[in-house]
């Protein structure tokens, strides 16, 4: 059982929905970023998605692209991203960390070496956007064997025929992408998302978390109402990008988590 599995078991026992937040590791700098990440659990974050910076984030909108650029500009690397997770783990052994990003930095490191390092750093799961089920033997299967969850994206274009394949090697939870598009662009609509979540849940016992297009406490609440939880990324990253103080960023995160937890 990973920290992710334990977290969902705990939420279920308490009758609560999950609130998941995304921040880019190293944005705007290492120390501030670590301070934000360390403050997330107290701001009501159940699972932390930690962005691994990449030069060519093809599924991300301008907000997260720029965050990645800022992180790379101050010299953020895969090693430093893992070091940040390890530093977080020194004081928090229960909040799951999911590393989210693209495959090339991991492939460049070497999958086996990366998995050992990620596990040692206290990473619990991976969301790698450009690895569909067709490429499962690249990282998904080795990651599961190493005891890390591999969390798959399901999207509005994932039809019933394809869904079993998407769910097959997924673990931890399923991340349903609420819109066809990039992060931080279109707005998620709970009326559209609800039936899709139900469709996925009819095929799996895994929790289904919804992300993309959730940017307010009301949206967070509405989406959590039709799923097992909500993810917010760009709206938080935009505040960090605007240079807001850590306390203000965390206060905003608290309003979002309160939204999801009020269900």
């Amino acid at each position: 059982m990973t920290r992710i599995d334990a977290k969902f078991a705990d939420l279920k026992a308490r009758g609560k929905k999950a609130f998941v937040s995304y921040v880019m590791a190293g944005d705007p700098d290492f120390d501030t970023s670590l301070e934000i990440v360390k403050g997330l659990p107290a701001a009501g974050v159940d699972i932390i998605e930690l962005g691994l910076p990449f030069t060519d984030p093809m599924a991300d909108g301008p907000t997260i692209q720029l965050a990645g650029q800022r992180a790379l500009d101050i010299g953020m690397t895969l090693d430093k991203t893992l070091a940040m997770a390890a530093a977080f783990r020194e004081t928090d052994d229960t909040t799951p960390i999911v590393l989210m990003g693209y495959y090339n930095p991991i492939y460049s490191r070497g999958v086996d070496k990366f998995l050992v390092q990620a596990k040692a750093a206290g990473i619990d799961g991976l969301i790698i956007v450009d690895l569909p089920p067709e490429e499962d033997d690249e990282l998904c299967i080795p990651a599961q064997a190493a005891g890390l969850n591999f969390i798959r994206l399901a999207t509005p274009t994932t039809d019933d025929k394809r869904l079993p394949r998407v769910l097959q090697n997924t673990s931890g939870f399923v991340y349903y992408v609420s819109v066809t598009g990039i992060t931080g662009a279109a707005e998620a609509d709970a009326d559209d998302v609800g039936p899709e979540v139900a469709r996925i849940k009819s095929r799996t016992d895994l929790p289904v978390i919804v992300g993309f297009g959730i940017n307010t406490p009301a949206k967070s609440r509405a989406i959590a109402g039709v799923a097992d939880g909500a993810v917010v990324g760009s709206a938080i990253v935009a505040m960090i990008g605007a240079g807001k103080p850590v306390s203000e960023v965390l206060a905003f995160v608290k309003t979002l988590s309160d939204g999801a937890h009020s269900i």
Partner: protein
Amino acid sequence: MAEDLFNSFMNGPDERGRFGDFGGRFVSETLMPLILSLEEEYEKAKTDDSFWAEMNDLWTHYVGRPSPLYYADRLTQHLGGAKVYLKRDELNHTGAHKINNVLGQIILARRMGKKRIIAETGAGQHGVATATVCAKFGLKCVVYMGAHDVERQAPNVFRMRLLGAEVIPVTSGRGTLKDAMNDALRDWVTNVRDTFYCIGTVAGPHPYPAMVRDFQSIIGKEAKEQMMAAEGRLPDTIIAAIGGGSNAMGLFFPFLDDTSVNIIGVEAGGKGVNEKMEHCASLTGGRPGVLHGNRTYLLQDDDGQILEGFSISAGLDYPGIGPEHSWLHEIGRAKYVSITDVEALEAFELCCLQEGIIPALEPSHALAHVMKIAPTLPADHLICMNMCGRGDKDIFTVAKALGFEMGEFA
């Protein structure tokens, strides 16, 4: 029996879209169903005579194929060695090889009922070709072009606009072809249901590398027949410039199993292939990685971050290369070299003066390598070089590089 034992170089890719370890389908889940349906439609079209009948008709009457295979007499005399033939794909409608592929993809898009076409472009040749074919068929066309390229390829931007296309300057990254491709993929993932992504090179997720190669292979098929007609035998060496590598793959593919033919791909060496990475030579200066849907050789740093290439030629300014080239490089069937900006400019000028052909900067790189090797080869050695584009689009860049004041053209 003999046939079973024959190990062809032309069987790739496998069912996973791999050429050896290269290629594949490294895309987000949103795009995956589209890519599978594109593959299915392409497999159907490939064996459908009516599809090829439409292609051949348009190739003949709209593009102007076959393009000539031209014996470059004065250039041959000047270089004093091997006999140099130029495959004149710069004479195609729109001025480059790009339209060979665009026609195929647009006919496919029409069969799939897609009404909106998007494309990325570097030098603008693929954008112009896509805008052209979209105008012909009355389809909406959106072209993503790096802001830096919009500036250095202004004539092609205007051409695209004349043809009714919307040109979107891309400011992310350094504003070149790589960034244009990222934004085209972002558009596609947003508008999956009505949009067809017309990729301009032999890269991207499967089936694009194979599909674009198949459409461009008309170059090599014609060259083979034309060389047989002219000389009664195959060429000894075939040469083409490589950015993503579509004109090269088109020339090379039909010759892959003719093992007597030397195959040479010429990458853009920019200011020189060195540790400063001011070049676009993915094979000579990069290593394998995953970008834009495929595994291939990439310019990247030690941490797997993609580097911006550098070349005077916007069409070669891409940090990756088609996966089939990576495979041909690793198995040694093709040889890859690099040519610097300075060498390409010398070849550009020489071609103008010796043959009365203003070449694009992209094939000027291939020609520069011909200039290096032809003098060292015997007179009966046959070289076939792909003159894949004309240089009209490049005259401003070349003027600047040569320190020539154009004055005002108003």
